């Protein structure tokens, strides 16, 4: 019987052919925790008798969710992480080095065909690399750090085939928002999503990460982009599904006519064509996060904002996904363009998206954000409303002071 990508990757780790529904205890190729999940991971690791992590080169801690520390309580949690990393001889990515998922990919903690476990729900992002990557909580991660293993049920797979090429001015974010709207926030619970078809084949690694990232918003265990067209800086062996693989469900969409998409408050699957929301006044525009803080995202915003000023009633925050992204955006002039247009640059990290610090909206305010979640209270204030869109939509909306279709600035 044929296998899906997930079934093949898990089989390679289990040492036998496995199929959806089977339970396995698998070796993992890497694991990480952030400063939201890391302190509880360390506590659980010690409580379960952990002395040494299974392999310090395959374990990492990242300070990104509240970086730099906004208060003494969090400063002490960061210190706990630094002390643990030093004791274990493992790498800790410091404040400003970047968002966990971005630095794991840039530093090759995860590669095609790997099983990676991260204590963060957007760990499926590495499905862009043709890896099987799952999010877990702190205690699961502590167990993986101690044993090098995870127990998991081989998931069923949903196939999403997108034919046609996206129009100019329509991006990977518009496509994944559209798909979240169709599949819904619980439509893929416990399952893998395989993204396949022409629409994905020409995508950069960065765009593929945007796609895989929001598998989480459909409840999926992970999301894997078919490796056809994937280009990396190193050689790799692509894992592709068999023709007779078994899928629980298949979707087919022709996306050649897709328009920019917006997710309205207060659920990521509340997705509509942008025309439904054009004219909605905004107070705050945000570009960053593990979903859309990469160089191509900042570049497209700069293309729209070059030589212009954002609207007088709008403030704009930019959080590059990593230090490496920031340096590239400085080198190519993008950062200068964005700052001259009126944007405020903050430390690489997750702060505004998780409502920790560095840009909490006021009561009654409206945010247009390039992030992946718009739950009530997500950005730190339950009395604000968050719309999600592509970085292009965020930039164009910042310019005009209301939600607007960015296509006219990009054609």
């Amino acid at each position: 019987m044929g296998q899906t990508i997930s079934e093949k990757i898990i089989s390679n780790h289990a040492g036998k052919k496995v199929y959806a529904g089977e339970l396995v205890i698998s070796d993992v190729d890497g694991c990480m925790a952030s400063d939201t999940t890391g302190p509880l991971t360390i506590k659980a690791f010690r409580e379960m008798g952990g002395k040494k992590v299974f392999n310090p080169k395959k374990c990492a801690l990242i300070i990104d969710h509240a970086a730099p520390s906004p208060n003494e309580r969090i400063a002490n949690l960061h210190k706990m992480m630094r002390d643990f990393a030093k004791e274990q001889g493992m790498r800790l990515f410091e404040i400003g080095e970047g968002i966990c998922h971005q630095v794991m990919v840039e530093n090759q903690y995860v590669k095609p065909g790997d099983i990676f476990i991260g204590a963060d729900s957007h760990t499926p992002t590495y499905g862009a690399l043709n890896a099987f990557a799952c999010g877990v909580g702190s205690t699961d991660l502590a167990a993986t750090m101690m044993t090098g293993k995870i127990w998991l049920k081989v998931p069923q797979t949903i196939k999403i085939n997108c034919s046609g090429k996206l129009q100019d001015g329509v991006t990977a974010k518009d496509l994944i928002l559209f798909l979240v709207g169709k599949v819904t926030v619980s439509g893929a619970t416990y399952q893998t999503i395989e993204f396949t078809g022409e629409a994905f084949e020409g995508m950069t690694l960065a765009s593929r990460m945007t796609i895989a990232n929001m598998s989480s918003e459909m409840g999926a265990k992970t999301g894997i982009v078919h490796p056809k067209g994937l280009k990396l800086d190193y050689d790799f062996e692509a894992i592709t599904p068999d023709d007779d693989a078994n899928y629980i469900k298949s979707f087919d969409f022709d996306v050649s006519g897709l328009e920019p998409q917006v997710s309205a408050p207060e659920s990521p699957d509340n997705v509509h064509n942008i025309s439904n929301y054009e004219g909605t006044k905004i107070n705050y525009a945000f570009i960053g996060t593990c979903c859309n803080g990469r160089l191509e995202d900042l570049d497209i915003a700069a293309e729209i904002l070059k030589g212009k000023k954002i609207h007088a009633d709008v403030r704009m925050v930019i959080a590059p996904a990593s230090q490496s992204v920031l340096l590239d955006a400085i080198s190519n002039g993008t950062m200068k363009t964005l700052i001259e247009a009126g944007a405020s640059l903050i430390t690489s990290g997750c702060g505004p998206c998780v409502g920790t610090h560095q840009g909490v909206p006021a009561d009654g305010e409206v945010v247009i954000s390039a992030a992946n979640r718009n739950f009530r209270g997500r950005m730190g204030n339950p009395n604000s409303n968050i719309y999600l869109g592509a970085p292009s939509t965020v930039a164009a909306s910042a310019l005009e002071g209301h939600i607007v279709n960015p296509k006219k600035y990009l054609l």
Partner: protein
Amino acid sequence: MSGIQTNIKAKAHVYGDHIDTDRIIPGKYTKTLDMSTLANHVLEDLDPNFNKIVKQGDILVAGINFGCGSSREQAPLALKQAGVSVVIAQDFARIFFRNAINIGLPVLELANHKIDKGAELDVDLKTGIVKDLTGGVTYTATKLPDIMINILNEGGLVNYLTKNGSYSL
């Protein structure tokens, strides 16, 4: 079950579908190891009164996709610390489900329940049978995989691994 009470008779607090982890415990309160901070803010953006009315042993009941969103284990920890003895939902988001079992908070999936706000429930965790004493209906929960039953029986993954050293299926 050594770590947890297996027979629970208590009141149900009933909420709707897609209760996300930001509603269970907002991100701004998660960076702490102090469990009372978590309990003080549990569900505050959904029902600001919850932490005042919840009593030790009470049962939380919800619709579909309970616990969607973040991987924060602070969500089940906040509920447990606030006194919730078991969470019943039509179904759960997967990370929340694993996290709850891992910290020893029992979770039961009742696909088609019609439990009303304030109902008195009688829950037997060993059999998965839930009697709605107010509604007069008896439900049977979806069975957990054996490994999850074993983890829960020890009161969570820390105790399970302390005892066994590693996983076994």
